[in-house]
């Protein structure tokens, strides 16, 4: 650091509070959260159902996303064209999608058009038609996406990394959108049944954020969604067992690739965990910030990459912990070595007070910047609902970040980073990366083609 004499000191901090929210429950069990934000004439609405990929019936992987998207494909009284046009003429952009722990409809609209737009949202969730033709179209689009993945190194690396991490019968081993085989086997009746089973008011929350008062918001929600028959979907826990507990290297061969996509990691921890804040701060220092150890090492000291980062993929059960980067082919093994060194260093000794404060002061200061928009506030409350975070979570967040000590960071590194269990995935040019990776002797190495098939399997099947 240079001489800091001329540097302006901060003025007194002005107070910030996460927007105040009110909760209510309708007679049919629907939870409602209203967050009045008087800034611009706009409102974001989210309907968050316990209808994520982890709740899918066995053998129907991908049905959660398919069902969410199919909600927008027409209702009993409106074709897909009529429905979309009604929404877009109100200037409403309505998205429906599912991830691991939820299925959600989200819409942002000008306040003046909220009531009309909400009527359409209610129609979509209460009276979907799931037209056969549109459903088959969505399935074909998912199959095309799976095919395209084979030529897309980033997505391919992410997808295969999860497959190598989790036990083969864990839902987490497959992409949340499902596989070609599972998606092909899904029919209209399955989708209608999944919708009936998982989109129920007792396990759904309506979140309304923006330029509207609590009473008005409740009135709009009640008038549109009270007719939803009272029922509740039972909770489902995902299976998060690992595929193996020893280190292994997985080389996905992409001949002539100009760069290697690297993923290095193992299974992490669930979102709700007593040491969440220690893990969060530890990861910021390891690879979560631009000035983190891994990024400064790989990008700024070595020039190996455009960027390198690490993160915990937070889910209700244990999602992956991963270091992700893309590096020049000829330094693939050297870059992997640096990542392992940084993980070891994180576990070896306490960070200095100066380094610790980089993460804690960042997380504390950036807090209000994260909630500038109605959509961002709705996302934060969606996380609160999905993971069951306590009502004072946002009000105590900065105190809890500040309370993390260097000893906490060391404990988190030693507990949550497990070098002996790391799985290393490289999607790259085998002619350049195989030998140096083998020479590192990290563990047994297996090669795959871009469909994720090993050479042995291909030989046995004789079809690729």
């Amino acid at each position, binding site marked *: 650091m240079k001489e800091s004499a001329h540097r*302006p000191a*901060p003025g007194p*901090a002005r107070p910030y509070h996460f927007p105040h929210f009110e909760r209510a429950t309708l007679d049919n069990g629907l939870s409602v959260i209203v967050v009045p934000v008087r800034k*611009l004439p706009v409102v974001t609405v989210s309907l968050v159902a316990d209808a994520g990929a982890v709740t899918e019936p066995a053998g129907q992987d991908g049905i959660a996303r398919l069902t969410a998207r199919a909600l927008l494909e027409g209702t009993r009284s409106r074709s897909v064209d009529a429905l979309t046009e009604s929404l*877009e003429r109100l200037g409403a952009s309505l998205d429906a999608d599912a991830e691991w722990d939820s299925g959600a409809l989200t819409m942002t*609209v000008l306040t003046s058009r909220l009531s009309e737009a909400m009527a359409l949202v209610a129609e979509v969730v209460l009276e979907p038609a799931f037209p056969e033709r549109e459903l088959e*179209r969505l399935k074909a689009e998912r199959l095309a996406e799976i095919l*395209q993945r084979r030529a*897309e190194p980033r997505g391919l690396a992410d997808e295969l990394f999860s497959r190598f991490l989790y036990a083969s019968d864990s839902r987490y081993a497959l992409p949340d959108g499902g596989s070609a085989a599972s998606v092909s086997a899904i029919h209209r009746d399955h989708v209608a049944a999944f919708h009936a089973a998982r989109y129920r008011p007792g396990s759904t929350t309506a979140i309304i954020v923006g330029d509207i008062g609590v009473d008005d918001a409740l009135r709009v929600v009640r008038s549109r969604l009270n007719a939803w028959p009272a029922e509740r979907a039972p909770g489902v826990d995902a299976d998060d067992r690992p595929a193996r507990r020893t280190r292994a290297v997985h080389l996905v061969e992409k001949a002539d690739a100009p760069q290697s996509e690297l993923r290095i990691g193992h299974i992490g921890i669930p979102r709700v965990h007593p040491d969440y804040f220690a893990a969060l701060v530890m990861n910021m220092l390891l690879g979560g910030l631009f000035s983190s150890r891994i990024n400064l090492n790989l990008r700024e000291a070595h020039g190996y990459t455009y960027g390198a980062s690490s993160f915990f993929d937070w889910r209700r059960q244990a999602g992956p912990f991963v270091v992700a980067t893309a590096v020049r082919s000829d330094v693939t093994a050297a870059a992997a070595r640096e990542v392992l060194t940084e993980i070891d260093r994180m576990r070896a000794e306490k960070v200095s007070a100066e380094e610790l404060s980089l993460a804690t002061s*960042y997380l504390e200061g950036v807090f209000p910047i994260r909630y500038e928009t109605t959509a961002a506030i709705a996302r934060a409350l969606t996380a609160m609902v999905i993971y069951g975070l306590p009502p004072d979570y946002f009000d105590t967040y900065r105190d809890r970040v500040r309370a993390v000590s260097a000893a906490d960071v060391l404990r988190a590194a030693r507990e949550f980073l497990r070098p002996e269990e790391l799985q290393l995935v490289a999607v790259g040019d085998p002619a350049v990366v195989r030998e140096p990776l083998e020479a590192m002797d990290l563990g047994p190495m297996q090669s795959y083609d871009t469909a994720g098939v090993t050479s042995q399997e291909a030989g046995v099947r004789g079809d690729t």
Partner: protein
Amino acid sequence: MRIPIETFRLDNGLLVTLSEDHTAPIVAVNLWYHVGSANERAGRTGFAHLFEHMLFQGSANVAANEHFELVQRAGGTLNGSTWLDRTNYFETLPSNQLALALWLEADRMGALLPAMTQQKLDTQRDVVKNERRWSVDNQPYGTWWERLPALAYPPDHPFHHSLIGSMEDLTAASLEDVEHFFATFYTPDNAVLSIAGDFDPSEARELVRRHFGPIPRGARKPPLPDMSLPDRFGRWLRATVPDEVMVPRLFLAFRSPVFGSEEYYSASVASAILGVGKSSRLQRVLVREREIASEATGFTFDLSKGADLLVLDVTGRPEVSGDTIEGAVGDLVDDLRTNGVSREEVERAIALVETAFVTSMQSAGERADKLSMFATYFGDPSLINDQVDRYRAVTAEQVTQFARARLGKDNRASLLYVPASAARSGVVETRAAAEVVS
């Protein structure tokens, strides 16, 4: 909705815009330098963007990468990006850290060169080469950023060449280039500074004067060559690229009126009618009715000099040929020219534009960036408050008239990617553009 705006200019030419909003203790600082890849000299493609990386390598009173560290330590977010005709640098911070952001930006505008070294340049050159591999070379269809402008602008036009740059030109960049580029383009009279959010205007004015006031005005930058172009290509330009992709994808571009012009708003509405939202024509007909495409969008590049591009981007289904996609998109555009657009379609497009605009203005960073944009391109940040009205003034007749004038067969450029295995025609060699973030 109107954004409050105050504007003033320092004696050294720096144009400053302020926009107060006290709903949260947040402030955004945003600087646009009126220089982009269009200003690069021959043999130095990619230099404007490489130079953007060098601006994070320290200045007289700031160490390498310390800019990032100081802003993040203060609880701020930051980045920079390079485009064909501008480069921007921006941070959003807790509002009590405004002075830090202004000091950091002023230090690198006033005194970058003392911190520049060969080693820093070599490292950032490697970083940028990896950025090129990541965003262009190892990404399906990643070369479209280069190939489309190369196809749609003549070889001697400043928008023709690659924004991220060729590997050879990146290798050739020297410290002398850094010095020369800095002295020529990174001057207060070639920049706009915008501050949006929670600040006291008199205090902000005083801080701006203190930190930026002493920086000397530049010797005038060399003017860009005449960038004007005929209204139409004059024929249907075609390039087919057999590539390592699984499905065909078409980029169909039209030469289009420059951003901010009267006709631009008709062009923008036409692109939305064709390709914005699920009830746009491309999605309704190609994705749902005919089921030959899986994705389809339309947009404009929003270039304010020479000529803009209106682009339709359509990804085919695996079993469909590139030729079928190209024919189907052509038919759709022909139909729009022949039969025109309806008032309802125009209203739908404008309603979506309006929601997107109001929604984006919630963010201080977005607000500051748009103020800088209007100030840089047109010298008038208050144009931000006219945008929704200018869209609302567009009529169906104007859109139809625009389509008839500009979307004909003599003004199309198709860049068609096909799976290499299914390819028939030869590769077209082109070079040129991407919005790159540092």
